[in-house]
């Protein structure tokens, strides 16, 4: 395919400019990637915290265990519920002794009530869902009291919403900056070949013919820049993990491919925009 060959020739003819374009694309995407990783890690941390969202329904004293066990099965069938643990008085005592080591002798048998510890499915750990399940549990005749750290959940979700909005706004800003930088870099490549473009048109090349190698070039630069950015991001997160002893998560395969496709698309659109503008002007 002549257009692919022309694109590769263009890389060979202007190696410095091509390297500069790829590096610029890589660093623009690296900034987006780093930001993406920060967002990903914050989300991961929040999800881990959310896993601790738990509703504890305390059982009235002297309720037969069989009745509570049956109720636990019913509760486990709620849409929002992931699992239900039936904690007997003995287990509650054991847990209290384990958690409050130095006061272990203070507790005596049957001092603490039995409970149903209800864990919610991801997506149902927001304040409204938690409140809804808590209300249903409260309605059970043998339930004395329901606790779920209402304030704590409210604050967690406020933090999550702020992080989400900030991530979307900053992500858009980073992506816009990356597109502008990539567009300018490709425009430099187009200007460097403006003489060739004018000769092409004089000898009868169609605009589509002129545009094609630039689009392929932009696509290749976008993919190479994306790969480089992915490598740089991996290196950065690896350094942070090893030197600051943070446990971090990296992009999974789907997100990595999405990033590469984003780079390719930016290269393609940047080229289409720059060549189109140039062809309209000359």
């Amino acid at each position, binding site marked *: 395919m*002549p257009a692919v060959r022309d694109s590769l020739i263009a890389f060979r*003819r202007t190696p410095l400019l091509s390297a500069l374009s790829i590096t610029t694309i890589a660093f623009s995407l690296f900034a987006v990637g780093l930001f993406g990783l920060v967002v990903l890690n914050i989300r991961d941390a929040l999800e881990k915290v959310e896993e601790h969202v738990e509703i504890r329904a305390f059982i009235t004293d002297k309720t037969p265990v069989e009745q509570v066990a049956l109720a636990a099965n019913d509760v486990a069938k709620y849409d929002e519920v992931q699992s239900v643990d039936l904690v007997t008085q003995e287990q509650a005592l054991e847990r209290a002794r384990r958690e409050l080591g130095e006061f272990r002798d203070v507790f005596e048998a049957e001092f603490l009530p039995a409970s149903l510890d209800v864990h919610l499915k991801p997506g149902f750990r927001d304040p409204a869902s938690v409140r809804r399940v808590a209300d249903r549990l409260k309605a059970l005749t043998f339930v004395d009291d329901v606790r779920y750290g209402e304030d704590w959940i409210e604050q967690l979700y406020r933090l999550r919403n702020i992080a989400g909005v900030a991530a979307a706004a900053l992500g858009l800003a980073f992506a816009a900056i990356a597109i502008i930088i990539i567009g300018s870099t490709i425009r430099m490549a187009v200007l460097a070949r403006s*003489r*060739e473009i*004018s*000769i*092409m*048109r*004089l*000898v*009868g*090349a*169609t*605009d589509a*013919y002129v545009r094609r190698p630039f689009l392929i070039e932009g696509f290749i630069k976008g993919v190479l820049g994306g790969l480089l950015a992915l490598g740089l991001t991996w290196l950065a997160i690896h350094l942070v993990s090893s030197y600051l002893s943070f446990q971090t998560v990296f992009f999974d395969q789907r997100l990595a491919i999405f990033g590469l496709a984003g780079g390719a698309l930016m290269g393609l659109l940047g080229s289409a925009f720059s060549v189109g503008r140039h062809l309209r002007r000359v």
Partner: protein
Amino acid sequence: MIRFTRVTKEYPRLGPALSNVSFNVAKGEFVFLTGPSGAGKSTILKLIYMEERPTDGEVRVDGMSSVTIRGAEIPKLRRKLGIVFQDFRLLEDRTAEANVAFALEVTGASRSSIPGKVSRALTQVGLASKAMSYPRELSGGEQQRVAIARALVNDPVLLVADEPTGNLDDRATRGVFQLLRDINASGTAVLMATHNLDLIRRSDYRSIELNRGQIVFDSAEAAKAAIERFAD
């Protein structure tokens, strides 16, 4: 082949470049376009290969009209023309052969047909032995020959040359001019803009003289008038 009908061209900031210009060029004709700098010679050539459109009037080239032609049809028109410039406009990083082949590649010619056509064009301009030379390794005259070979390789019906000898010494000028004559002799019409009055005097080709965007002399019209006077 070419018909200008009351063509006016005005540039937004520079004002009028051509005013009410009309002339015809027949198939296979050789015509000089002459006049001082800024007279409108290059504008006429740009109107022919439709890099510019007239502000008023009509330009027709090989059946295509400036009034009705669509942007997408302009490449088709240019493939029928050969265009040569004073500054050669060669790609410095390609050999003579690659520069000529370039004109075929962009028109989508089959890959197998390109080497033969390029070789013939370079032989026609006397540069077969320098096919692998880069423009910087060639003299001005040789570079212009490569540009002419590039213009010829698509078998144009009209060769448009804008001051093709403007950057050349006398010897190279004579060589390039002889080449254009040979091309014309084989049936291709040639329209050559030039300042070189010597060339015009040494040949008996038609010349059109422009001044301030208007035709002030056309040797064909003058000859027709002389014949009419003689007949009277």
